[in-house]
């Protein structure tokens, strides 16, 4: 399995989204409209303040989420991974609803918010394997203070994969895996195995298909997380 296989597998999952809202919010979820996600609109009365999104698979209800939460997802707040602010936010709720769904046109800010959610989980669990891919080593250096804290204050085993665009250096407790130039430079990924608790396992994989625009998914499926982590370790360790 390669990164591309993992994206393709998620893309095959057909999902139907219906936006229930007054007219002004009908286009809010356009970013989710992809080959395997259909987006429909059904009106609510013009006064209705709070719209919502219903996810269905083969006509069956999967989950619903308020459009306020969708809005927060599209413009997420960025927190440090160890702040409690992150826990219980609407953002987390949306991640739980839209997991295993391929999203297009994700920008760096959205990916960073999802990344923080995974780092926060790893931080709270406090041990286990956290594998993190940076497209460039310099991007890792921008996040260095976050990873220094994670490495110092937890028992996590942290592996960082990055295409080398500067001299190799990093915190003492982080294992660096330089990539001479290939796949790693095109993908943003994290996997956390849950530290022995499968319910805490999570991963993010996104490909930069256009400059600054990513296509990807996140998952809480322990098997999918394990497939990704196994592929990364097999290929790059």
């Amino acid at each position, binding site marked *: 399995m390669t990164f591309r296989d993992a994206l393709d597998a998620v893309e095959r999952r057909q999902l139907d989204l219906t936006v*229930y809202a007054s007219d002004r919010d009908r286009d809010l979820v356009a970013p989710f409209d992809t080959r395997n996600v259909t987006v429909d609109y*059904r*009106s*609510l*009365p013009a*006064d*209705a*303040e*709070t*719209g*919502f*999104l*219903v996810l*269905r698979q083969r006509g*069956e*209800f*999967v*989950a*619903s*989420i*308020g*459009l*306020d*939460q969708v809005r927060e997802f599209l413009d997420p707040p960025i927190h440090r991974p160890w702040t409690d602010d992150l826990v219980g936010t*609407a953002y987390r*709720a*949306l991640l*739980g*609803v839209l997991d295993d769904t391929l999203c297009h046109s994700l920008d760096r800010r959205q990916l960073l918010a999802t990344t923080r959610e995974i780092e926060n989980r790893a931080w709270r669990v406090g041990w286990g394997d956290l594998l993190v891919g940076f497209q460039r080593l310099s991007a890792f250096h921008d996040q260095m203070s976050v990873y220094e804290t994670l490495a110092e204050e937890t028992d996590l085993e942290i592996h960082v994969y990055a295409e080398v665009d500067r001299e190799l250096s990093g915190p003492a407790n982080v294992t660096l895996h330089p990539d001479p130039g290939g796949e790693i430079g095109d993908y943003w990924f994290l996997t956390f195995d849950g530290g022995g608790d499968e319910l805490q396992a999570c991963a993010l994989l996104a490909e930069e298909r256009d400059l600054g625009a990513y296509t990807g998914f996140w998952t809480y499926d322990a098997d999918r997380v394990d497939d990704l982590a196994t592929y990364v370790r097999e290929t790059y360790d």
Partner: protein
Amino acid sequence: MSPAPGPVTACAGQSMSRPFGVHSSGLMPDDRRHPDAPSLRGGDVDDAFATLRNRERRFALYFLLEHETAPIEELADVVVGWTAASTGATASRRRRNRVYVDLVHSHVPAMADAGLVSYDETDANVSLSPCPDAIRSFVRRACEVETGPGNAR
């Protein structure tokens, strides 16, 4: 799993007018009055309020105000999604299925008895009944208050 023998249109019968002293035109600022709307009968208002004390019933009716007719399956999705969103929550499949069962066994039959909706068993659609304009006006006003700007979350 049949909520009511359908179609039921308890509201659409003969008009036994009562001296309410209120002209429905005065209660209906909007222009969406039903052409076959019967006039108000004794007990209609009591029945409507008693039936609509339940929040899930009201939200189902708000959706029918917009669309007139909806499959009962969709109505369950809407009621659970809308009520959850108004308190900033997501809704799970389990919660949705509970609402569906309540709609089938309790809410839709009760609203049909009160003359607010009818249920067509053959296509599993719930439709707004041509109930008195005054009742429709109450429901529309409740919808504004409960789902509109500044509603209590």
